[in-house]
């Protein structure tokens, strides 16, 4: 009888320990800490553009570009791209000279906070500037040079 009591108490203690450990792991997983890697502010080019661009790394390792306080003019066929330059200026042909770029997708809205997934393996030390780019007219609506956060 005594022995069984001790056994069950040990089992109970073990179960509690496992439970506590499990909760800890779960809590860590749900922590969802995204690292802020780089940030910069937009300066308007062809169209006045303002706001902030920030690149986060989520826990899984994937990169996300987030635009906040963002505002630009609406337009046709506008895209978000990363370009392999330090900054982009008001050159209407700014991509014609063979500047490398990474396409992040069509601009979701010309106002407001929005996220864009960055393809895995993008070299951020090379692609240093975000551009709001009108594909149809090869126009740079605005650019945000990124710097280490």
């Amino acid at each position: 009888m005594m022995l069984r009591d001790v056994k069950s108490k040990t089992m109970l203690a073990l179960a509690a320990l496992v439970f506590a450990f499990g909760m800890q792991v779960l809590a860590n997983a749900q922590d969802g800490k995204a690292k802020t890697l780089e940030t910069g502010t937009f300066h308007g080019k062809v169209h006045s553009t303002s706001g902030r661009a920030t690149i986060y790394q989520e826990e899984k390792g994937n990169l996300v570009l987030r635009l906040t306080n963002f505002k630009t003019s609406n337009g046709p066929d506008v895209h978000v791209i990363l370009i392999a330059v330090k900054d982009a200026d008001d050159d209407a042909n700014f991509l014609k000279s063979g500047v490398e770029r990474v396409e992040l997708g069509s601009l979701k809205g010309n106002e407001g906070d929005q996220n864009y997934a960055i393809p895995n393996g993008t070299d951020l030390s090379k692609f240093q500037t975000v551009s709001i780019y009108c594909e149809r007219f090869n126009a740079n609506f605005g650019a945000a040079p990124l710097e280490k956060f």
Partner: protein
Amino acid sequence: MDSHIRSWFSRRKWILVAVGLPLLIGAWWAFRPEKLWINQKVNEPAPFASSTDPQPLYTGRLEGKAHQTSGRATIYKTAHGKEYLRLTDFSTSNGPDVHVLLARSDDENLKQEIVKGQVDSVELGLLRGNQGDQNYDLPASVDLQKYDAAVIYCERFHAVFGIARLEQF
């Protein structure tokens, strides 16, 4: 004769319509002029939930003045409402009596390397180290709209080591 001219006119009119209408539609498709007035608003949440973590409010890069200074200055707000300034990747030269201040980025006194007048500022304390990450608590109720610059300042020689213009994060 009269009717001949009229029929010629109407034929011409139809050609104009047949050519002009597609041109107009093409031009509209290319330029989408109505987008000049129509906004497309979005409001996506941050890609992660971290409401308990301190949130960055303002940030800026430090630029060297009297001495070479680099790094980032960021003002965070904790979940409890406390605000603090955090310096990261920070490097400046060591010196005597160096302080961390919040000041106004449009302050004329800060445009020079050596300050001659009185700087309107909020004292955050002595610089703890000339290299490395460090935090400085902000006094309660600092107007961050007004004091929008972090300054590394040598009190003894009135020298501005470096300044960071803080912009909304």
